[in-house]
Each structure stands twice: as structure tokens, then as C-alpha cells.
């Protein structure tokens, strides 16, 4: 069966389950468990090493029915996800961590088991399996209700970021907010393509020793772990761990960091006082390696990425607009970053490409440098992919062709040899530091929807832009209100 119709078949079933109260996210999770069990079974059948003990394997599931099936499934999930005290989670344990059966009706569970049972998944090409799963993840992200969209970065953007940085083989690549593993996967695919891998040893190194990631949401880590597994990345050791990257300096250092930290409000913790009053306290991370203590999650990720880079290491990180203009802690972080690193490229992203509404985001590219008296940043090149660009998730989604000009201007072959163009301008260090609060919110193109001109954008485009502006204003007001309450 061709992959896309397989995705469709699996996905159609989601609709049936949704009517019984199983959300898309839950559905993808359950598919993950069952698929893993089935594939492991298939490995065993051809006498390849497999991981699941007989007591809890696929056969033990498919031979059962009704309540017996449901009960056994529940136990199976619990057992496989159990981690020994003090030990690192294995691949299986990562996938089944905190797993629960969300399908309350045994008959539906049986139907799902049958559906998975019918296919030979291992027989499918590695790429195909991976694509099917990615397809499911994408559909999951589209489901607004599930809220899983915030974990999904548009693939054309990821590909452009990786192509720009152009990682060399034999180095390490890390994502401290890896979500479902999109960046790691794309980097893997691109590196695999390049004919630089001479030996089987090199290929092993690429698959097993190159990639790592962390995320603090167990369910997402599960999906990411499965995603890696289906693409053959990581081998026995799961490359993705469940951890709060911001909590501490992990000690390890990486050659490349790609990441899209979650958007959204400042981290906060609900506190119940002795009198039973509930309030939110800002969650701060006090780290020695940080330049400044703040509740702003994205600023903290920026500081964290700076810490975990090797000297000479390169990073590409997606940040919202407010990292570029916020005063106070924001100004401090920007100043330090411009000094300690060569912050060489800033990509202003268009609206309408993320699942979160009204998000205004950017990609910041920088290279970590050794300690020095003088600032390392000489020139910041800004690419404006925002002004007069109109994308929507459904009718006009971002595509690889939309990113081509940016990658060309970036000039991965030699980023010191660049030309200015209509959308690509350089700003030198003095200009940047003269700006009030070292504000990096740089734009120069005229917005057609603000101009008196014959060529007005179509009403729908204007309406959408107005809505996005209002949404981002509302988000800012909410932030301010939150901070005033603290």
C-alpha cells in the first residue's frame, strides 16, 4: 500500500475513535505503542534481536479479546514504561514512559490492534515508515484542539535552517527543546544524502553518535523517540531524553544546536498558600552560567544554547519578536550575546506559518567564540521574509521554494562573502549598540498594507494581517498583566 493512503487509513480511524472521546493526540500515542510492539514482533519473527519480553509482546495482545485484552494492555503499558531507580531510561522505557490506555472500549481497541496487525511494517522502507509517522505527527499538529501544534515547526523552515548552517559530519548536533525531533531528523536526512560518508563506521557514527535532544513533556518525548526509532537514529540508546533543559547546565557541549523553544507565556508555577489561596509564581532558573535571571522562557533558552555550544560551535534558534526588543533582561542578554558570539544572521519570519496564532518569530544564527575584550559581532545580516509576505497554513503554506532566496543570500559556502539585496541588509556593530536598548527589531521595507497605493492587498489579506496584529497586541498585554501581578 502506498504510504499516503496508509496514512489516510490510519488517520481515518482516528475519526472513529475521536467520536468515542479519544483525542488525536491520544490516538497518535496509542498508535505509537501498538506500532512499536508490532514492529518488535516482526523483528523477532525474522530472528533479529528484539527488545520486548515475551510476556508483554504483540502476540500476547493479539491473542486476547474484550476485557481481557483491555486489562492486559493496561498492565503491559505500565510494565514497559517502568524505569529502575537511578538508571537511565532505555528506548523501550522512553516510549512507554507514563503510558496509559486511553481507549476505554475494548471493541475499539481490538479494531485498532487488527488494523496494525494486518500490515507488515518492517517490510516497509525505513523512509516510508518514517514518513508515515511524520504524516501522523503533522496531522496531529493540525488539530488545534489538541494543542500539539506548538511542538511542530514547519519542515521547510527547518530544512532552510539546517542547509544554512550546513553541519559537517562527525560532529554532534543537539536540540534542547526537541519536541517530536524535527530538527534532528532533517539534519540526519541532509547529512545522509551528502556523499561524504565513506565507510560503514561513518554511517554508524551518524546514526548513533551524532544526535541528541531533550524535552520536558513526556508525551512529546515519546513521539520524538518513536520518530527517531522509525528513522533508525540512535540505535539502542534513545537519543531523546525527558528533561527540563533549563533546569541546569548539562555539562556536555555540542558542535551544532538547532532549536525552536516553545512559544507562550513565561514559565510559572501554581502555588497554593496555607490559607488555600492559589496564585502563580514566576518560575525562575538561577544558573551560574546565565547572564541574567528572568522568567522569560525564550531568553533563558537563548542563554542555555549559548552555554551548551562548544567554542566555535554554531546555533540556529527560533525566537519571538520580544527577545529582540524587550528591555531589562532582554537588553542584557542581547548585549552579552553580541559580545561573546559572532551573531551574524537574523531571519525575520512571516506570520501565518506556525500553528500558534499571530506569532511573530525570527531565527537567530550565531557562532560561539572564546573570551575576548572586544565584541565578536562585526556585522548582523538581516533577511526580511516578513514584510509583504502572506502565508496561511491551509491555502498558502510555507514551502521550500519560499526559503530558497534566503539560503542563497546566507551563502552557506562562505558566510563572510555576502551581498546586500532588497530583502537582505547588513547592520554593523556600532549601529546596533547605538540603538535604544540594543533593539534588534530591524525592518526597512515598506509595508504595502500601510501604503496609500493603487495596489492594495486583497481585503482578505488585510483582514488577516489586522487580526494577527490584534492577536499579538493582546498577547503582549496579557504578558504585561501577568508580570504586574507578580
Amino acid at each position: 500500500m502506498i504510504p499516503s493512503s496508509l496514512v489516510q487509513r490510519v488517520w481515518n480511524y482516528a475519526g472513529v475513535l475521536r467520536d468515542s472521546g479519544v483525542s488525536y493526540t491520544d490516538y497518535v500515542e496509542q498508535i505509537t505503542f501498538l506500532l512499536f510492539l508490532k514492529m518488535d514482533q516482526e523483528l523477532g519473527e525474522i530472528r533479529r534481536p528484539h527488545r520486548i519480553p515475551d510476556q508483554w509482546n504483540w502476540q500476547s495482545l493479539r491473542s486476547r479479546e474484550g476485557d481481557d485484552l483491555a486489562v492486559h494492555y493496561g498492565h503491559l503499558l505500565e510494565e514497559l514504561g517502568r524505569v529502575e531507580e537511578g538508571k537511565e531510561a532505555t528506548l523501550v522505557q522512553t516510549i512507554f514512559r507514563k503510558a496509559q490506555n486511553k481507549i476505554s472500549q475494548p471493541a475499539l481497541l481490538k479494531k485498532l490492534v487488527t488494523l496494525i496487525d494486518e500490515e507488515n511494517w518492517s517490510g516497509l522502507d525505513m523512509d516510508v515508515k518514517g514518513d508515515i509517522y511524520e504524516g501522523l505527527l503533522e496531522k496531529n499538529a493540525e488539530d488545534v484542539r489538541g494543542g500539539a501544534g506548538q511542538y511542530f515547526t514547519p519542515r521547510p523552515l527547518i530544512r532552510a535552517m539546517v542547509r544554512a548552517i550546513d553541519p559537517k559530519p562527525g560532529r554532534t548536533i543537539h536540540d534542547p527543546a526537541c519536541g517530536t525531533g524535527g530538527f534532528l531528523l532533517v539534519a540526519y536526512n541532509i547529512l545522509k544524502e551528502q556523499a561524504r560518508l565513506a565507510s560503514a563506521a561513518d554511517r554508524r557514527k551518524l546514526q548513533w553518535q551524532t544526535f541528541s535532544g531533550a524535552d520536558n513533556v513526556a508525551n512529546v518525548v515519546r513521539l520524538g523517540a518513536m520518530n527517531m526509532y522509525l528513522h533508525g537514529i540512535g540505535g539502542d540508546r534513545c537519543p531523546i531524553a525527558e528533561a527540563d533543559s533549563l533546569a541546569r547546565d548539562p555539562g556536555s557541549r555540542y558542535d551544532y544546536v538547532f532549536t525552536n523553544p516553545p512559544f507562550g507565556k513565561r514559565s510559572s508555577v501554581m502555588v497554593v498558600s496555607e490559607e488555600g489561596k492559589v496564585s502563580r509564581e514566576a518560575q525562575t532558573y538561577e544558573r551560574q552560567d546565565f547572564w541574567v535571571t528572568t522568567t522569560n522562557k525564550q531568553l533563558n533558552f537563548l542563554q542555555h544554547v549559548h552555554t551548551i555550544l562548544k567554542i566555535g560551535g554554531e546555533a540556529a534558534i527560533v525566537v519571538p519578536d520580544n527577545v529582540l526588543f524587550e528591555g531589562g533582561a532582554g537588553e542584557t542578554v542581547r548585549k552579552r550575546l553580541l559580545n561573546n558570539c559572532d551573531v551574524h544572521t537574523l531571519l525575520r519570519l512571516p506570520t501565518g506559518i506556525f500553528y500558534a496564532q499571530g506569532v511573530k518569530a525570527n531565527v537567530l544564527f550565531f557562532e560561539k567564540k572564546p573570551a575576548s575584550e572586544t565584541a565578536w559581532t562585526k556585522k548582523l545580516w538581516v533577511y526580511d521574509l516578513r514584510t509583504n509576505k502572506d502565508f496561511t497554513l491551509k491555502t498558502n503554506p510555507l514551502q521550500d521554494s519560499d526559503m530558497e532566496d534566503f539560503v542563497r543570500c546566507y551563502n552557506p559556502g562562505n558566510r563572510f562573502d555576502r551581498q546586500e539585496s532588497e530583502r537582505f541588509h547588513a547592520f554593523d556593530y556600532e549601529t546596533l549598540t547605538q540603538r535604544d536598548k540594543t533593539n534588534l527589531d530591524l525592518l526597512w521595507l515598506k509595508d504595502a498594507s500601510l501604503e496609500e497605493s493603487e495596489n492594495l492587498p486583497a481585503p482578505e489579506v488585510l483582514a488577516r494581517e489586522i487580526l494577527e496584529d490584534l492577536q499579538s497586541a493582546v498577547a503582549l498585554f496579557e504578558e504585561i498583566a501577568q508580570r504586574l501581578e507578580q
Partner: protein
Amino acid sequence: MSAAATLPSGWTRITLDEACEKIQDGTHFSPKTQYTERQPGLFRYVTAKNVREGGIILDEINWIDAAAHKAIYTRCDPRPGDVLLIKDGVKAGVAGINQLNEPFSLLSSVALIRPRRQILLPPFVKYFLNAPTGRGLLLGKMTGTAIRRIVLEAVKSTPIPIPPVAEQRRITEKLDALLSDLDAAIATLNRAVEKLKRYRQAVLKAAVEGNLSHEWRETHPESLVPAAKRLARVLLERRKKWEDEHRSVPKGADARRGLRYVEPQCCELEELPDLPPSWPYANLDIMSQPSRDALKTGPFGMALGKEDYRDEGVPIIGIENISSGRFTPGFKKFVTSAKYASLVAYSLGPGDIVVSRSGTVGEVCVIPEKVTGLMSTNLIRIRVDTEVVDPAFVALVFRGSKSLDNQLSELCSGSTRDFLNHPILRSLALPLPPLGEQGVVVARVEELEAALDAMEQGVQHDLRRAARLRQSILEKAFRGELVPQDPSDEPASFLLERIRAERAAAAKTKPVRSRKPRAKGAPAAQ
């Protein structure tokens, strides 16, 4: 803020003079030679127009030579981090921090404020002077009626509340973060306001080019008669109506009176926007009955003058009653019923279209139900054949068609003012959709405009709230309510006392002038 207002714990209040090392203004003698371009050996000459809350703006700064600079700088030497305050002119009261690393000269329109950093930090002073609290104190003491001016003495005597230094830092850091976010939100809202205006224009444009009624055309395929054919039909009908009316008049009389049917000219179609295939272009002649009164200019000259105006009676309707394509009630001038009767040819009633012919030419509206009056001289009345065109649609075209706008500006140019006249009006090309479609377009535009009006109101409301929020954040800051007090901070008053004591002790110690031993019996230095 009254002097008696209680201060938070750890805070004190003193005058700026006490709290600062130096408060001085720039030179009162502007150098005669100033350069506009940078050259080696020259120094910047900063005046009020270069100072903002965010710092010094470097474009449009003049330069002066070293000698002139030295003369000024010896007396007034701004250093990096000092506070600069505009004390003369429109922007008096604005304070910013000097971010330049080089020496430069100031004009007297700017004052230099250098706080004693052990007790008072420049960013805190800057925020205080810009906040309603501080600025109110400064501006309240302004003298001068022609030019706003704050005297140096007033600056020096301004009281400033002073928290512990660590708290000052916490306050300014929080203000930096909050206000930068707030300003970004305000900028976004202002952008939204601009875009709403464009959206309105885009809606009108879409309306008159057939892009709001796609669905209607699909569900009314019988209306899809090709434009030329429909136009021919309309012209035929028009002729028939005229002939029906004039049937009773004997032929000979026709010829004698010169009454002849005049076929309206069709429009020149170059450079007009494309319309749907069922929409021809037409002009006002085609859209109205063949009658001398289809277009009528208001009474002028002797017919209606100031002496005819009254305070009550039949209202005179003029340009002031047209606003954004809508009729706005409110009459100032009236005439007697008798006068109105004598000028009844110039009357206005529901369904009449009026267009302004001087001043802002081309402002249009339709007279609504229950409104009657006398046309003023600067209006032209248009009466259309309502079986051919809806007056509301005509008004819409005048409002929304850029090409009509262009036609008007090209054609109307009087000697001193733009003037619109009948021939010009007649030559304008307007789209003519089927009558049913016109109604749909008009309704759709009304719907969208109502939503836009509501949105605009909402945004303006938000902007006002944002401005109030800004004020309230700043007021909270200087009441000590923005960040919590930390009991471990040394209270400002203690610090102040210590510094005063140290200073007093230093003043009493006489400087050692020579190495000669003290003469016996002479008093010891204290």
C-alpha cells in the same frame, strides 16, 4: 503628588540639587560657526532636537570646532550615562540618557543632570522625570508664555523620591521590560488602525469592481447578460420612456421648442479597471431620466443670499452634511417656507444624490428618508432612474472607485479651487451592474463597514487603555508598588546621612599646604 505623601519603607525624598553632583545647562552663546558634516577635529553640538527618551539621535546634529567646543565643555561636560533634560521648547520635560562615548557640547535648551551614583542612579532619574509624577513637578514650574522654558533653579529644587539603590535597579529593570513590551503593543495597535483604513478602501474597491458579489452572480445566472447587450437595452428603455412622455406633444411643437431626444454619449473606456462581463460602464446621463433636472446645481448669486437665512424653517443642506459618504444631520441655516416654495426646483428629498462641487470635490451622499430641504450652492443634485440604478450604489462608486477619483482630479481644475460642473459629471464612467446585484453589493458593504467601525472603536479604546496603563505603571513605580521592598537593602536615608557625614568630615579637614611642622601652641587641624 503632595509633599506629605507617605514614602515606602527605606525610601527618602530630597531635592535633585542635593542628590546630584552637577546640574548645569548648555551654553547660552551658540557658536557662530557650525558645520553640518563631520570633519576631523570637530565636536558634536547637541540641542533639544537631538534628545529623546531613548537617548541622543545622531542624524541632523551640527558640529563645532575644537576651540568653541572647549569653551562650552569646560562649563558643561556631559559624560556617558548622564541624564539630559530638554528644558526649552515644545519638548520641554523630556529626559534621556547620554549614550555617546565621546565629548560633545550642549546648547542651553538642554540641561545636564549628573546624580551622585552612590545614592541615585541615572536611569531612575530619567524615568522619574519622564513619568507623570516627575514631569508634572517640572512643568508646573515653567515660566515664559511664548516659549516654554524650565529654569535651572526649578530643576534643582525638584524633589525626587529615592529608594535604596538596589531597589532603584530593580525598578528600572522592570520598567525597561514592561514599557518596551507596552510600546511594542501600542505600535502594533497603531499599525492595525492604519491597516483598518486600508481595509476599508480595499472593501470599497472590491465592491465597485464586482468582487463582493461573485456568489450572487453564480446564483443568478439569468443576470449574466453581456455588458454591451445590457447597456443597449438600458438605452432603448430610456428612449422609450422619453417618447412615452412626449407622445402627447404635437410634432410641430417639438421642432419649435427644440425638444429632441438626445442619445447619451457612451464612456471612453481606456484605462478603466476591468469589470465582470455582465457589468457595462455607463455615465450619469444613461443612469437618469432624460430631463433637464437630472443634474441640478444649487442656487447661487441672487437667488439665495445671506439675507434669506433664518434660524428656523426649511433647512439648507450643504457640504457640512456629508461625511465619509453618509448624510450627517445638523442644520445651521434655514429659509422660510415661502422662500423654499420659490426655489422648489432646488429642493432635496429622500433618494436624491448630492455631490460637492467645490472645496473637497466629489464628496457624495444620498438623502435619507424623512429629510427634505433646500440645496446649498456648493452642491449638485443627481436624480437617477431607480429602475436602472440604486442611488446608494452610485454613492458607493463615488466613495470607492479610485479610477473615478482619478477622473475627477484630472477634470476638475478651476483657477483657484477645484470645481465640478455638469459636463464633467456627465463624462464620468461608472460601473452599472444589474439592479439586483447593486442591492447585494450595497448591503454587503454596509455589513462590512459596520464591523470595521466596531473594530476601529475597539482598537481606539485599547489604545486609550494602553496609554492609561503606561501612566499607571509609572505612577506605581514611584509609589514603590512596582517591585517589592527588600528589608535587607540599606534605607536610602541612612545612606544619605552617611554620605553627608563623610562629606562634612572631609570639608573640616584642612588640606596640607606645606611640610612645615606645626608651630608650638597653634591649634591642631580637626
